């Protein structure tokens, strides 16, 4: 299973290194999202208060694109069928694609956070930074796992673009809330204290664990059809 996972992850990341779609497309997209938000809201105090929320909104929008891309690779030329008959263990595929996804998301979030600190001139202290990093890891993992799971679910069906946002957004709402609150604490936005952040991190970890286990079990049946 883990060999498969490594194999698939390596493949996805190599495809990305070749096509540079995430780097050249999703990153600018996410950046523009942030700028546009700021533009539409055009009010500093609001922006500072909402910066954390915007970071995670940006992430989730990008997640949508990255997941679609991640399965477009498989369905473009019928490779998914090939995978399904190749006897590759579905859990392996699931974990592999999740890993690749997580790596790409992480790069994205770092950029967004940086932008938020710069553009919305939020500020952050050491303990905040620690909290922020510990937030990013479980949040990203969770998003990557959910994304892969529902991406796989949607991939087979005809109106996949139809399904994906519908399925994904409601499910990631907890991450949005949890990560936002934690980040607010880290940024000290709207007067939140750093300590307030940790419970949320706990929640994110539980979330990630749940989908890690659930997804690994459920992905096989999903690929069936």
């Amino acid at each position, binding site marked *: 299973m883990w060999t498969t996972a490594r194999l698939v992850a390596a493949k996805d990341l190599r495809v990305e290194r070749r096509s540079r779609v995430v780097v050249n497309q999703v990153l600018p997209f996410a950046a*523009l999202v942030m*700028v546009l938000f*700021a*533009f539409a809201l*055009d*009010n*500093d105090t609001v*922006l500072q208060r909402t910066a954390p929320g915007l970071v995670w909104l940006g992430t989730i929008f990008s997640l949508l694109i990255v997941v679609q891309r991640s399965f477009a690779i498989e369905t473009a030329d019928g490779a998914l069928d090939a995978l399904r008959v190749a006897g590759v263990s579905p859990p392996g595929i699931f974990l592999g694609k999740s890993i690749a996804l997580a790596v790409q998301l992480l790069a994205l979030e770092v950029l967004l956070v940086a932008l938020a600190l*710069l*553009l919305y*001139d939020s500020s952050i202290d050491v303990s905040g930074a620690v909290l922020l990093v510990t937030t990013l890891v479980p949040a990203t993992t969770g998003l990557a796992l959910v994304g892969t799971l529902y991406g796989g679910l949607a991939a087979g069906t005809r109106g996949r673009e139809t399904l994906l946002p519908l399925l994904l957004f409601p499910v990631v709402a907890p991450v949005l809330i949890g990560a936002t609150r934690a980040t607010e604490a880290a940024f000290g936005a709207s007067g939140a204290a750093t300590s307030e952040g940790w419970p949320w991190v706990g929640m994110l970890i539980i979330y990630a664990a749940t989908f890690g286990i659930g997804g690994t079990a459920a992905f096989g049946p999903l690929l069936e059809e």
Partner: protein
Amino acid sequence: MPIGRGTSTTFTRGLGVAAVVSLAAVALFGLVLSPPDVIQGESVRILYVHVGTVWVAYVAFIVTAVSSAAYLWRRTRSLVWDRIAGASAEIGVLFMAVTLFAGSLWGRLSWGTFWVWDARVTTTAFLFISYVGYLAVRDLGGSHEQRARRSAVVALLAVLEIPLVHFSVRLWRSVHQDASVADRTTDVELDGLMLFTLALSTVAFTLVYVWYVLHRQRVLAMEDALDDKGLDLALAERRSEAVGQKGVR
């Protein structure tokens, strides 16, 4: 432009010298001779870089648009126009970056933050992004004509954003009136020497701009010529590819 000869001529050499000299002069006047501003204090010296580069960047983008139009118009169609457009846009983007940089430094000093969502600041950012996109379109690959046609269209649309930037102060009910107020007041209260320095910096940057465009456009011409050279080799290889071989081996 045949390959082998350098891209500089006596004229461009003279131009280069003039540019360097005038830049030195700007430094002298800007940093030493010109007085600090009543409102801005010493930080006003940033103005000379900030505004000088912006205006030259505007000029650069307009040149890009004009030569793009010249390319699209069948009667004057020639890749020379395309190269000028490309070169001009490149240095335009460079200057715009300087404006943004100097501006945000200035912002740190006078507004206390690097970035505010002032209309002009933001629209400037958009203008900058547009021309980054323009350059991206230029190296999409494909034939030279393809590159020229695609990028020309983009250039003609992107240039429309300049008036938007210029009038943004009025267009946009900004929450940061103070910024654009600062813009105006400093304008008004520039004393003679400051005005002169501003003019001087504009001239200096213009010289740099012309110098760069002349060189760059020639370099681009050589690159295109080089592509054709490379094609000759590839052609020979391709034609020999097949002889006596079976299948695609």
